[in-house]
């Protein structure tokens, strides 16, 4: 019997064909063998500006345009490579130290091999995305070389060779090819051999380095390479410690502190058949040892108590949990546990004798258990769970400061590497162990770090230092910290975006001739008495209004919105940037724009006295505020005046003002009150959050005072008409595009959210909170009044607001019509239309409305459900982050305004724990914790009555504190020794009238 073995040599083009075989498992569970044929080419350029042969050969696009070559002709040199060098990192070099490559001081002219890029994508998607971002930035000169497609550098896997070895070999082959190719190129150009740049492979793999040496390739470990650079100490800190640590530990064979995670397949199976659950891990802001996971299976979140059960999950991770047996179920703790107070005296370097649970923690937990047991008759233990695996880490870069006590004094000045703790700004993130050589320098600074790993034998995650933002409490550092912490894009607009702006710049005007294409289908509304009402100093004026009586006794009311979609065309660089930013972020002293200044504050902004393009919604409304007819049109307007809320209010209230503009405003005011009443009758909620305004010194913008926001009727005037515009637009675009309309919904909160508040109200005040519908809730909230305390109602509203779901953008095709409902506004359908300058969702709504009125065809990007869903997901996150960043900024400034001052203020108890309570001071809109041990020294004994929410103390200080009680607190600021962090501190002066 003959066995036929086909040889490839007979095929003349065999050399150009290679294939790649792998197994692909699809999501539906199919397992396929995939064979990909590779057609090898010889025209993939090396992209070095030294090379002329590649330039001649490199493929051009249909227009004959060549992608410009990236790598510099005179790359930077180092001590080891004075002739200049190109870098070729391998995968683990990138995995360990991508931060290094993002530096601006070094790491230019880097060749990223396709092999490496693909491997990186399999290992870590976030790192891959960052690297792709890097390769796109022109100044860093990163070039992706498709080595697997180039004939000379393609490598076929040998028999018995592991994939990793094959990839390493591919890297070495590419490096070798590059160096010989460049040598030839330089010689061909008549250059001297001294001018040939070295091609250096960067790797942390010893085996790979050894083989490179054998092959005669320039290769270098990351550490050695960085040592040859200028600011080596700083850069060395950025190399991930994960690997180093592993070697260390192998030697020591430390015991494992945490349970091992389940295998991926075990988790998947468990989740699929319902024995395990997957959800996002959230840490309680009051107790760092208590987390919760909301899983789709249950209405209420599952509790996760204690370090062992949390099992290395970090806030935001997608985790897989297993429900614990019933005898381990517990109530959520009523105790405040903070990391800093519990583990103050730890030494970051000490690894021995580390237990997951320190004695102190254990005692705290025992008390907890006792408490639960003592009242097991009526206590309702909640199901608890244990983290058994991480489906997806959501680690990002964290801002924090170095725990000064973890830095040993002796080495503060020296350059010795030591391990220190970083305390993240976000309390829900555990301390991060960071190895650094610059401990002395970064004490007292805001620093940025990333987490590299969290192994079973380490109590805390291990990370590395990225960069310092500046001194603590300096405005620049704190603002940047906020922006980083809330993932706000704050870098200046790139050139590609600015290129999309109108060429005329600030000189742009509405074309005088009506023949201009800009006037097509635009209505001329310049004759109308239009004005805008906004907060003081508002520059980006989105909206303007007008009203005039009609001969039939009705009114014509118009809402005119800046026509941003005229300037921002879909799918150009500016549109992409805006969709990524999602929203403008307002900080106390800074505004991070979604659109470039030129548009936001000038061309789009509906400034007074000048003509502007607008998108108008015009209604005919009866004096009883019934809408007779509505229409939408693109228009040209000329605003007569830009009022602030206060100015407008004064004008409306002043009977001597009888001009048309004021009359129109009075009409609007009258109608808005009727609209509001109608809305309230329908069950709209009036919710509340403590809002304050920071008064700043005009020149330095240093905070001088804090004021609570005053509510004016003109504010609700604008609000009502914006709501009206939003709802009418929502209905219109939904009618035109039932599958792809960009809408906003506010889900009805599950009843369980209100359980606790309802119980508290019942016990403390005998009030009933009915939550079956928004109408019921609104009515029962109205009934929550304390005749002696006008703020009580607001307090309850604040608490109720926290029980709500957050509103979200969505694409109409993804939900059923009843789900469109906006719970808070009691509106069937709603969208955002009125602030296109500062919100991307509005811009999408503008485009859809323009298409709905046949002004322009609908662009593909706002027609595709999938794309819209992605946009919605992003802007929902951005929106939430922007709000949080704004709030955090106010909080910081309140702290700064109070700096060095001691103020006595009234506050209200919002939450009572067994060892402390939370007080909200409405005057400053801040809430803070008062612990028992803050009350007196020694700490008074206490008895906590959880059913009646009363905390009684005896001994060194006798008082009783109960929920909703009005108390007098002394507010001061303290700089905590040890952390160097300034905090607002509350002291209880008296427990008020109780």
């Amino acid at each position, binding site marked *: 019997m003959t066995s036929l073995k086909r040889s490839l040599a007979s095929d003349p083009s065999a050399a150009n064909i290679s294939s790649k075989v792998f197994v692909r498992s699809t999501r539906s569970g199919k397992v396929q063998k995939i064979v990909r044929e590779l057609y090898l080419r010889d025209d993939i350029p090396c992209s070095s500006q030294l090379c002329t042969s590649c330039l001649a050969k490199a493929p051009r696009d249909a227009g004959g345009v060549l992608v410009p070559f990236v790598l510099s002709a005179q790359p930077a040199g180092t001590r080891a490579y004075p002739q200049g060098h190109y870098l070729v990192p391998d995968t683990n070099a990138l995995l360990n130290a991508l931060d290094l490559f993002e530096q601006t001081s070094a790491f230019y002219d880097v060749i990223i091999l396709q092999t490496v890029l693909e491997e990186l994508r399999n290992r870590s998607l976030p790192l891959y995305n960052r690297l792709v971002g890097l390769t796109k930035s022109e100044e860093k000169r990163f070039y992706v070389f498709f080595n697997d497609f180039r004939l000379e550098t393609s490598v076929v896997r040998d028999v018995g060779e592991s994939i990793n070895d094959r990839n390493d070999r591919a890297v070495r082959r590419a490096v070798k090819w590059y160096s010989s190719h460049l040598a030839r190129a330089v010689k061909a150009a008549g250059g001297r051999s001294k001018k040939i740049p070295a091609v250096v492979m960067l790797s942390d793999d010893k085996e790979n380095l050894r083989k490179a040496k054998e092959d005669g390739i320039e290769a270098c470990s990351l550490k050695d390479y960085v040592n040859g650079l200028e600011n080596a100490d700083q850069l060395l800190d950025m190399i991930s410690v994960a690997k180093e640590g592993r070697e260390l530990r192998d030697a020591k064979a430390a015991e494992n502190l945490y349970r091992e995670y389940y295998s991926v397949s*075990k988790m998947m199976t468990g989740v699929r058949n319902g024995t395990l659950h997957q959800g996002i891990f959230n840490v309680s802001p009051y107790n760092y040892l208590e987390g919760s996971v909301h899983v789709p299976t249950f209405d209420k979140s599952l509790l996760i108590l204690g370090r062992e059960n949390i099992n290395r999950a970090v806030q935001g991770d997608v985790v897989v949990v297993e429900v614990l047996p019933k005898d381990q179920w517990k109530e959520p703790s009523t105790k405040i546990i903070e990391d800093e107070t519990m583990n103050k005296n730890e030494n970051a370097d000490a690894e021995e004798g580390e237990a997951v649970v320190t004695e102190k923690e254990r005692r705290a937990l025992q008390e907890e258990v006792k408490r639960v047991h003592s009242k097991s008759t009526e206590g309702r233990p909640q199901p608890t769970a244990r983290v058994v695996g991480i489906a997806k880490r959501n680690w990002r870069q964290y801002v924090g400061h170095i725990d000064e006590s973890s830095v040993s004094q002796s080495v503060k000045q020296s350059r010795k590497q030591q391990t220190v703790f970083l305390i993240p700004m976000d309390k829900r993130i555990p301390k991060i162990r960071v190895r650094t050589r610059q401990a002395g320098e970064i004490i007292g600074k805001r620093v940025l770090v990333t987490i590299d790993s969290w192994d079973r034998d380490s109590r805390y995650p291990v990370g590395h230092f990225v960069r310092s933002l500046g001194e603590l409490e300096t405005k620049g550092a704190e603002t940047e910290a906020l922006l980083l912490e809330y993932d706000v894009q704050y870098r200046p607009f790139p050139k590609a975006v600015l290129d999309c702006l109108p060429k005329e710049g600030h000189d742009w005007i509405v074309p005088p001739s009506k023949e201009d294409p800009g006037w097509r289908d635009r209505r001329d509304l310049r004759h109308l008495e239009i004005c805008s009402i906004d907060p003081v100093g508002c520059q980006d004026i989105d909206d303007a209004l007008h009203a005039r009586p009609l001969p039939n006794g009705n009114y014509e009311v118009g809402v005119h919105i800046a026509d941003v979609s005229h300037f921002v065309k879909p799918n150009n660089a500016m549109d992409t940037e805006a969709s990524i930013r999602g929203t403008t972020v307002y900080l106390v002293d800074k505004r991070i724009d979604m659109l470039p200044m030129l548009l936001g504050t000038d061309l789009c902004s509906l400034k007074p006295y000048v003509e502007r393009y607008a998108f108008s919604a015009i209604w005919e409304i009866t004096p009883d505020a019934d809408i007779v007819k509505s229409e939408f049109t693109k228009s040209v307007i000329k605003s007569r005046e830009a009022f602030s809320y206060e100015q407008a209010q004064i004008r409306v209230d002043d009977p001597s003002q009888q001009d048309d503009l004021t009359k129109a405003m009075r009409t609007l005011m009258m109608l808005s009150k009727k609209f509001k009443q109608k809305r309230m009758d329908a069950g709209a909620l009036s919710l509340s959050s403590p809002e304050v305004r920071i008064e700043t010194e005009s020149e330095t913008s240093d905070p001088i005072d804090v004021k609570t926001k005053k509510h004016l009727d003109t504010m609700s005037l604008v609000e009502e008409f914006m709501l009206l515009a939003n709802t009418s637009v929502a209905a219109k675009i939904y009618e035109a595009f039932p599958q792809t309309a960009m809408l906003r919904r506010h889900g009805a909160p599950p009843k369980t959210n209100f359980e606790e508040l309802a119980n508290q109200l019942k016990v403390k005040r005998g009030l009933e909170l009915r939550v079956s519908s928004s109408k019921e809730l609104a009515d029962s909230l109205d009934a929550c009044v304390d005749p002696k305390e006008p703020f009580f109602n607001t307090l309850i509203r604040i608490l109720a607001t926290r029980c709500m779901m957050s509103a979200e953008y969505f694409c109409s095709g993804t939900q059923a019509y009843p789900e469109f409902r906006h719970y808070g506004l009691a509106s069937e359908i709603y969208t955002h239309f009125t602030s296109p300058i500062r919100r991307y969702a509005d811009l999408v709504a503008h485009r859809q409305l323009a298409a709905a009125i046949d002004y322009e065809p609908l662009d593909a990007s706002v027609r595709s459900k999938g794309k819209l869903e992605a946009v919605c997901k992003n802007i929902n996150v951005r929106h939430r982050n922007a709000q949080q960043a704004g709030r955090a900024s106010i909080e910081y400034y309140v702290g700064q305004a109070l700096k060095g001052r001691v103020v006595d203020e009234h506050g209200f108890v919002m939450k009572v724990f067994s060892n402390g309570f939370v007080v909200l001071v409405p005057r400053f809109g801040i809430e803070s914790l008062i612990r028992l041990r803050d009350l007196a020294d020694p700490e008074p004994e206490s008895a906590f009555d959880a059913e009646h929410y009363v905390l009684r103390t005896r001994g060194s200080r006798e008082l009783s504190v109960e929920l909703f009680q009005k108390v007098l607190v002394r507010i001061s600021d303290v700089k905590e020794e040890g952390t160097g962090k300034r905090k607002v501190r509350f002291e209880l002066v008296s427990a008020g009238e109780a």
Partner: protein
Amino acid sequence: MAPPSTQQVLLSPAELSYIHTSLSLTPPIRPDARTSTQFRTLTAETNILPGTNGSARICFADGTEAIVGIKAEVEKSRTTYQAGEDLNFADDDDEDEETRQEEKEAEERRGSNEWVELTVEIPGFRDDDSMPVFLAAMLSEALLADGEFTSRLWINRRYHWKLYLDILLLSQPLSYPLPLLSLTTHLALLSTRLPRLKSELDEDPLFDDDWDASVFLYPREWQKSYTRPPITLLVMAVNDNIIFDPSKEELAVAEAVLAVSIGERSSANAEDGGMEVDSDRNARDLRLLAVRTIDPPSRLTHPGVPNSMNTATGGTAAATIEQASSQREVTEAEGVWQPPRGGAKRKLIAAMIQKVLEPGGVAEEVLDGLDTVELG
């Protein structure tokens, strides 16, 4: 009895008689000069279809050629009544529990015949024609006969591989294609590889994405005999002569045709039997899996007309067809073709099977030959 190849035999009664006579000699003289146990030369190669899990091609010297491609798919097992009861795999540290579990697992590792789907395609035949259907039935019968094959497809209690064997005859069926298809299938199965399982126990299966790490469906140990897929050989008899690998012309005069399916057990199992037969020469432990008789095409040939019944040679032709056939029953004229009648003798069939299975017999020779095929 399986139907014959419906290929029309285009031989005259005289030719048939000639072939029959020469095959009846001792030793028989075959039209292509082979010995009675000699196979036509064949060329084989494996892994010719990169997209499949395993494939093979065999080409006989007479120009018949077949390709087999095997694809595997993960499929959810239907839970049987006993198996569905406890599917959670909580860590049971209890040892008893574990051993019990193992026993249970061994019991459950049994596969189901539905896990294999075998189709045969022959040019010029519809897929519901009897020929491809019967060929497929015979091949899958041999494959499933040992009851062991499907257990190789077991992944865990909830999942299994489903194997699709696509057998394609590329050329016209010049001779009865059963042995060709069987050998090709055999090689394809030997070269079949399944992705390596990474998950444990009853989890949703998760596989290694490295194809090089995949495992053979029939794992091999170096220089050791191992369990392998069955082969089906075609044996025919003319008088008492037993002839292997008959060509089309030979089949046209066959008196009995058998399809004999044999399998081989791994040597480890063989030792259990305690039989000390030929342990020195590393004998194969062959097992008979199935025997099917095949209706030889010779039965449909036209009989020759003896001189006594031919008017042209002075004989008298029979008046009716009935008379003619009854007359033919009794005439035993030399050189006049008579289609075979009646069944094969039991003794003959036993001899045919014996010839296949005996040590140093044809089956061993074929398997030795197949062993030389490289499985790339």
